[in-house]
């Protein structure tokens, strides 16, 4: 079976990419100049430093450190545990396991990014189809110009403007804080729908989604316009099909392939955007934790966060690959390389 082979191959690729990502994040911390000891105990004695170094495993050769970090059974040093055992290391300062922070903050960020992505696609797809169909009309130009303007507003500016206008002046939504939502372990499971949660999420989500709406819409529009010029669309017209059928049954699916890819890749942008948005709106998600880790020079913590995000990103794009196969039958048979 071609499909099975393809899936197997994708899994192998996934493993390789994850390995490379882990190695890269690891190297970033170890290879870049700067002694972690200097940050942890800047005024410690040499003996203190050496002890800490041993404690953290930093006295081992570089590759051994990496193996320990991964926690490869049989290869890792005595008494250490690594990622494969679910150990993402501890904070330098408090010696708390990083996983504790992850459990709290990751769901919050996932919620935020998910809401933003859904909102962006829900607005962008109909607008993209509409503007492509009415290509060149006044509606198209109006929407397109707005999208263009939206693209030029940086996230942080939009966040501040929204906070100022909607939050401060109009007082419609809170401008800072967070209330647990359905993904959050702190969520009160007895309640089915937490309005407060969404109230706190409105401004961060709009901020995050705004730029994406413009990107997705313009992308779908231009792909749709190209598709509508394809011969098979003329053929569909010549069959006497209705415009609605041509647009949604014939044109949308082949046009949505790039959109899908970009939506997958944009998860990275969204997570990046989430850092700023969380900091500005005081949402205690991963972004905020990353920010604090950088400020506090908690490199092990940072390294773990980056690894988790990169893994998520790779996994999501792995899923996107499969959606792609569903959407485009041509890939099922063709060589995937």
């Amino acid at each position, binding site marked *: 079976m071609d499909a099975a082979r393809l899936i197997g191959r994708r899994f192998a690729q996934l493993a390789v990419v994850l390995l490379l990502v882990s190695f890269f994040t690891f190297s970033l911390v170890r290879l870049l100049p700067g002694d972690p000891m200097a940050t942890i105990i800047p005024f410690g004695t040499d003996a203190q430093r050496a002890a800490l170094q041993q404690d953290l495993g930093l006295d081992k050769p570089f590759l051994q450190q990496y193996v320990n970090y991964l926690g490869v059974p049989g290869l890792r040093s005595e008494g250490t545990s690594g990622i494969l055992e679910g150990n993402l290391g501890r904070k330098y300062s408090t010696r708390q396991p990083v996983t504790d922070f992850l459990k709290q903050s990751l769901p919050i960020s996932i919620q935020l990014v998910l809401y933003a992505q859904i909102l962006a696609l829900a607005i962008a797809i109909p607008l993209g189809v509409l503007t492509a169909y009415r290509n060149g009309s006044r509606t198209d130009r109006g929407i397109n110009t707005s999208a263009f303007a939206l693209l030029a507003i940086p996230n942080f500016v939009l966040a501040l403007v929204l906070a100022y206008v909607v939050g401060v002046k109009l007082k419609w939504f809170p401008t800072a804080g967070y209330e647990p939502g359905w993904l959050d372990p702190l969520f009160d499971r007895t309640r089915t729908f937490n309005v407060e949660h969404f109230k706190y999420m409105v401004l961060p989500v709009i901020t995050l989604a705004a730029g994406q709406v413009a990107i997705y819409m313009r992308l779908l529009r231009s792909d749709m316009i190209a598709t509508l010029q394809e011969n098979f669309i003329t*053929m569909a017209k010549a*069959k*006497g099909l209705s415009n609605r059928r041509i647009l949604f049954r014939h044109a949308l699916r*082949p046009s949505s392939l790039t959109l899908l890819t970009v939506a997958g890749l944009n998860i990275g942008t969204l997570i990046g955007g989430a850092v700023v948005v969380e900091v500005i709106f005081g949402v205690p998600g991963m972004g905020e934790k990353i920010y604090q880790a950088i400020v506090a020079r908690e490199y092990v913590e940072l390294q773990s966060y980056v690894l988790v995000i990169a893994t998520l990103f790779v996994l999501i794009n792995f899923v996107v690959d499969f959606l792609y196969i569903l959407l485009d039958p041509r890939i099922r048979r063709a060589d995937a390389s």
Partner: protein
Amino acid sequence: MERDDTLLQVTDLHTSFATGRGTVRAVDGVSLTLAAGRTLGIVGESGSGKTVLARSIMGLLPKRGATRTGSIRFEGQEIGELSPKDLRDFWGRQMAMIFQDPMTSLNPVMKIGKQITEAIHEHLEVDRSHAREMAVALLRSVRIPEPERRMKEYPHQLSGGMRQRVCIAVALACGPALLFADEPTTALDVTVQAQVLELIAQQQRERHMATIMITHDLGVVAGRADEIAVMYAGRIVERAPTAVLFSELRMPYTQALLSSIPRLDQPSHARLSTIPGRPPNLITPPPGCRFAPRCAFAQDRCRTEEPPLVAGDAPGHEYRCWFPVDPPSRRPATGTPVGAPNGGEA
């Protein structure tokens, strides 16, 4: 002139496009008639407007920027007066079209079966299973092996020839009275071309369907069309029943076109007669006869005054030339390849 079984009558059709560089008059005053069940071949080089002519008749022009004037009557019905909805009803049921490139004329992400049944559902009141049966029968009739299995396949799983067969099946799905075949075999290999042309001819016989076959290759229509119209720069320059055209041609362009094709019955390394220059662009066509700048027989009059389409000796023969060449039938058997122009005729 109109016969009883006239299916299509096009009178003085003009189609132009507003582009960034000016107005392109792609079709400029074309009139033609076609009887039910007959085949009209439209021959021309790229840029002659033949494809735009077919699409204008169908009404398949872009929403904006294209202007069409003139009358197109199909079974007496003026097509320009149809509402968009009526026109959609017309497409597929009365007139259908197959396109040049079978690789891109089928939706790549939709199963073959669906692409046929959706046309059936759109026009005929039939239930799912009946539509399916019809589609399988259609695929079988266009000689696609294992039609049931093919119904579930996607276009990319078929070869070019097979895809063109599917396109023909789609076009025939609702039993159109007129089929436009726009360079249906240009993208195909020569043996596949023979298969597809044969298939179209056979379907046409079985269904008593009229066909307009558009091609750049006189060979494709020579043995198959009842009548041939030669187009140059947006106009019909010569038209005649097929046999008449080849024996009585008067228009220098038709003659040049015919003699510039390398032929198997010529010895190898035979020097080909060529047409100098290239076709004019249709934003600023040359004044007078549009072929004059490339014509070996052009005189001053040709460059200033455009010749009308005049009747030839044989019935149904018309051509557009001030100084027509001697027809092949009147040349001496051993004759020099090019007949001397008859000054002052017409």
